[in-house]
């Protein structure tokens, strides 16, 4: 077990070195979209709105945290791995080392988690300042952590599957972008028709939004959504392992 932890840290180590050197620019870049969403949707469109009994700004902040956990964790894990695998080929160095595939997958995913937590942390600080009624308790932290981990494994899987940078961009447009706007981040799912809601519940960002928002607003916590999110993470982890084992030794 301690060997596995050391191996995972070894995979993560170069990324932490990079992060330590460039944390400010990475943080600033990853905050542009969420801050724009907050300003445009929170203040621009929904300044005087209430949704499900709370102000729209209080409603939207947990959604934006969930959204940031998805985009930053996914991108943080996927982009560098995609470039290292397809362009620089430096990912081969990991595959040719004696450490296990599972340590490689977890280590690469943890990069997404670290970046996701960093960006979400900044949003949370802003959010608590804007809307003091938000509750940041262990359940909120747990939901955020699971969300970052699930989307990081998703990012690792996507980076292992796509065979060009163009495909990665297409994947972002076809999968990530629709989730950004459809998964209850900016509106309550109770407002959409039953059939559509059923479809949206299949998507991981919906589960993430449900968990993080319920914890932040002190509502009844949807444990089933948290379990579903864990399930998504597990599926992407095992899919990544399968992809690695199928091709390399």
């Amino acid at each position, binding site marked *: 077990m301690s060997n596995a932890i050391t191996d995972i840290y070894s995979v993560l180590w*170069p990324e932490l070195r990079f992060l330590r050197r460039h944390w400010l620019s990475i943080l600033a870049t990853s905050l542009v979209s969420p801050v724009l969403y907050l300003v445009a949707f929170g203040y621009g469109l929904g300044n005087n709105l209430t949704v499900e009994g709370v102000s729209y700004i209080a409603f939207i902040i947990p959604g934006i945290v969930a959204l940031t956990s998805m985009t930053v964790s996914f991108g943080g894990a996927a982009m560098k791995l995609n470039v290292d695998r397809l362009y620089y*080929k430096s990912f081969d160095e990991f595959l*040719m080392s004696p450490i296990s595939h599972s340590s490689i997958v977890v280590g690469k995913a943890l990069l997404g988690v670290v970046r996701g937590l960093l960006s979400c942390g900044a949003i949370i600080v802003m959010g608590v300042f804007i809307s003091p009624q938000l509750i940041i308790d262990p359940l909120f932290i747990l939901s955020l952590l699971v969300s970052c981990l699930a989307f990081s494994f998703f990012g690792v899987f996507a980076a292992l599957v796509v065979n060009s940078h163009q495909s990665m961009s297409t994947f972002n447009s076809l999968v990530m972008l629709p989730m950004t706007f459809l998964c209850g981040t900016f509106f309550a799912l109770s407002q959409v028709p039953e059939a559509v809601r059923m479809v949206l519940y299949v998507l991981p960002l919906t589960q993430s939004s449900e968990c993080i928002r319920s914890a932040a607003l002190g509502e009844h916590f949807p444990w089933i959504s948290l379990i579903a999110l864990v399930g998504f993470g597990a599926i992407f982890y095992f899919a990544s392992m399968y992809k690695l084992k199928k*091709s*390399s030794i």
Partner: protein
Amino acid sequence: MDDLITIDRLTKNYGKVEAVKELDLKVRRGEIFGFLGPNGAGKTTTMRVMTTLTKPNSGRVSIDGLDVVKEGERVKELIGVVQQHLSLDRDLSIRENMVLHARLHRMRSTERENRIRELIEYAGLSEHADKMVDVLSGGMKKRATIMCALLHRPQLLFLDEPTVGLDAQTRRRMWDLVRRLNSDGTTIFLTTHYIEEAQALCDRVGIIDHGRLIALGSPLELRQKLGMVAVEMQGDNNGTRYQYFSDRAGATRFVQDIASQDQTIIIRESNLEDVFVELTGQKVGDA
């Protein structure tokens, strides 16, 4: 001398394309072995299987008696790999890249620090060790890549096109480094497009074409099979033609018989490139 690499009926397909077909090959411990072949001949695929990056469809590859598929983790401890492309992390310095490689090979911190210092000096990179990869010259990057591959003291070093893109002087320095590594006990398996490199460095050479091994032996043995003397006939409408002879007397007699003012005829010693061209039907530069 015992065999360090044994390849037995190795076959690898990509879809319907047979990249390697029932390849048999043995590489001896302690030698510098050159693996030549045109593009698409199966060199890279064979090397990817040996270095655990690709699974074979059938056949067996063993390194020091260990099956690369069944005992991949132990095989990875025995081999060092320098790929054709630069596989260093560009976001790190040379020293940090070496630390990463040492970590991936589970070296303890004290051993790691000592070994990195030793190899940085060995490669003459002491002044550049803390510079970021991107500011270094091509030769320095290549030397750093080789040092990374040597960190865990591999018995067998794979070099894929080790001097591609380097100038002539740097290439010669790289050859000296490869010879020094070999004399220190490391078996070298190298692929190259530079035929003079194989001739200068390799104890034995294998030539692969269409996934099959078509020649194996020392550069001298392969030249002897073809003929030690080459007659090069230039200026003919059919392009340059070649004829090979076991000795200079035979070549001279041939030239006297066909002498013509329309042709420039050169008698010279044959080389490994002649062997390659005759066997594969293409010049190495075209491959």
